[in-house]
């Protein structure tokens, strides 16, 4: 469903991604690991279509179309979801109104009927309970004053109601204690299915104990320098990133 070929991306004239190749098939969970500053979040933002990221060469094909031609909102309507590392706080927008708005706008785009108030409430209550969240968060402003854990759960809640085809989760584990980590992981695992792909971006192996990936890729200095299965994550946890670096030709040891 996703084919990234030799992707090079610059931000303000600095090249961040230096030729990334990656293919994700429906039903697969891929993990991207790497040290800080290796370009992990950039990859997430480029997939979601953020403005300041300039693709200088390469291509991204998603469900048979050129992803780079689509605006961020079109990508979302085509089934791409980015779970933000730092979700934006928007005072004045009620969480419940926001959720209703995005659910119906996505449903409309998919040619489904919009939900009425009652159906909406039922859906939200069900998803909120599944994520061990308090219903009162619906009344609050979107992410406004939320703790780190609440923000991440809210991201997973949005993912759960939008039912994307490809979910990119950027450092969803950061700022979570172990209980919250389990809840969030359960939320993700319950959505795993044969027609949905996941790209899980993380710094630590810890998350991958809960969301077990089919493939693990190591991103260093803008390039995927090693790929393997879940055992690669365990090896990284034990040995750190240094031992891989020499394999990447442009990375100084």
């Amino acid at each position, binding site marked *: 469903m996703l084919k990234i070929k030799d992707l090079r991306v610059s931000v303000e004239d600095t090249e961040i991604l230096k030729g990334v190749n990656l293919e994700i098939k429906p039903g697969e969970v891929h993990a991207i690991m790497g040290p800080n500053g290796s370009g992990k979040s950039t990859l997430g933002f480029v997939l979601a279509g953020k*403005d300041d990221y300039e693709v200088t060469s390469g291509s991204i094909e998603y469900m048979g179309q050129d992803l780079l031609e689509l*605006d*961020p909102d079109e990508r*979302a309507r085509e089934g791409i979801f980015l779970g933000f590392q730092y979700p934006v706080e928007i005072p004045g927008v009620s969480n419940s109104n926001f959720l209703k708005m*995005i659910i119906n*706008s996505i449903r409309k785009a998919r040619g489904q009927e919009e939900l009425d108030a009652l159906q909406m409430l039922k859906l939200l209550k069900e998803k909120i309970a599944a994520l061990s969240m308090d219903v009162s968060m619906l009344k609050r402003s979107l992410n406004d004053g939320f703790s780190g854990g609440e923000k991440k759960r809210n991201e997973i809640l949005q993912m759960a109601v939008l039912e994307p085809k490809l979910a990119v989760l950027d450092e969803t584990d950061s700022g979570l204690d172990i209980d919250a980590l389990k809840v969030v992981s359960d939320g993700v695992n319950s959505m795993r299915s044969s027609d949905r792909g996941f790209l899980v971006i993380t710094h630590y192996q810890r998350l991958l104990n809960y969301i077990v990936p089919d493939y693990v890729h190591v991103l260093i200095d803008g390039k995927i320098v090693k790929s393997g299965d879940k055992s690669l994550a365990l090896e990284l946890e034990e040995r750190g990133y240094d031992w891989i670096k020499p394999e990447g030709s442009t990375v100084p040891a």
Partner: protein
Amino acid sequence: MSKYHIEIPSHFSELFGRLENSLNGQSDKPYHRLRKKGSELLMKQGFPSTRNEDYKYTALNRVFNEKYEIPESGKISAQGKTAIESIKKITQGESSLCFVNGIYQAEFSSLNLEGVQLIQLSQLEENSSKLRDVLEKIDETISHTDNPFIRLNTSLCRDPLLLFVERGVKIDTPIQLIHYYETENSSLIASPQLIIMAEESSEISLLETHLSSSSRNNTCKVFSNVFQRMLVGKNARIKHHKIQELNKEDFLIHNLIASQEKDSHFYAITADLGSRITRNNLEVHLKDSNTWTEMFGLFASNGQQHIDNQTFLDHAKPHCESREWYKGVLGGRSRGVFNGKVLVRQDAQKTNAFQQNNTLLISDNARMDSKPQLEIYADDVKCSHGATIGYMDSEVMFYLKSRGLDEQQAGELIKIAFLAEVFESVENESIRNLIAEKVIVKLRTIYES
């Protein structure tokens, strides 16, 4: 005349004489002395020029250059009647005072609230103490004000009104002040004047709307120059809500002076959506301790609109609390001005004052001038003030789009959210929804160009 003023143009100075000639028997009534005094003081003072610090960002030449007629009473079109009836529905029309071109229309008004009286000053006995009290208040104001528009209003006011709320009377349903303006072939100056006396422990809520008819020769303009004086008695409460939706060629100068006695509460919100130029002069004087003052403002403009909010809050006594928050969204080539001054006098210890102005610019050609001022002479106070002027946050925009909202939906959400904190201050649910609804409709028309 100081260098900060310009001479009153002759087409303005003639207006007083023309009104006087049309007053018939009214010109020997006691109020006429005030009209005369207002006119004389105005001639001496002149109109403010942009060299005047408080008018630096608001040039009123467009208002001064226009030649106006003084409206006559008793005429209203069928279209006007329909418009007024539909505004009345907002509060089921139980208590509404209607003004056409600034003149009170008794036959379209109704007020059946026990303990609340609407009095036309011309109907009061010449030696009644009520009349004496009111005239004294107006005299005091026009003598001491530095605001020429209050003098202009008094000199041209045909039918001054008193709304009197008796001691202990609490009215929850809003009393509507419906201002409707219509003209066919000439520009008009409207000069409504209303004094509100809320006696000890009384409570009222007001909903003031300004709307003008669009069917007219499009070179005609309406200039509404309002003066309201509100006296909030001991432990009393006045809540004042205003929605202004004038035509895009019209002018509004809205002058409101409130004074608060001990333990009283004054709440004011203005939502300015229409007009070519709006200038709100809001002054609140705290006469005694333990008062609570709230001043809120919303403005949303596009095209060539200019909306200026001037506020002055005089903390003269201790243990008083105030909160002031003005927020606006500017598009097109429109301009906004906020000039808010909070004065905390030496006696006003334990004052708690908050003042804030935030503006969201949608267009590169829109402009906001903001001047939050805090002048403190007491040493044991808690005061804060600030202003922000900014563009739409691209991070927020991206976040919303990444959830499938298109540019327009996301932009609308951001604009509404930006103003939400202000309209959420409205306690009355139907008024809050009404303001929100009007603001949202207006926001949909605010774009970059």
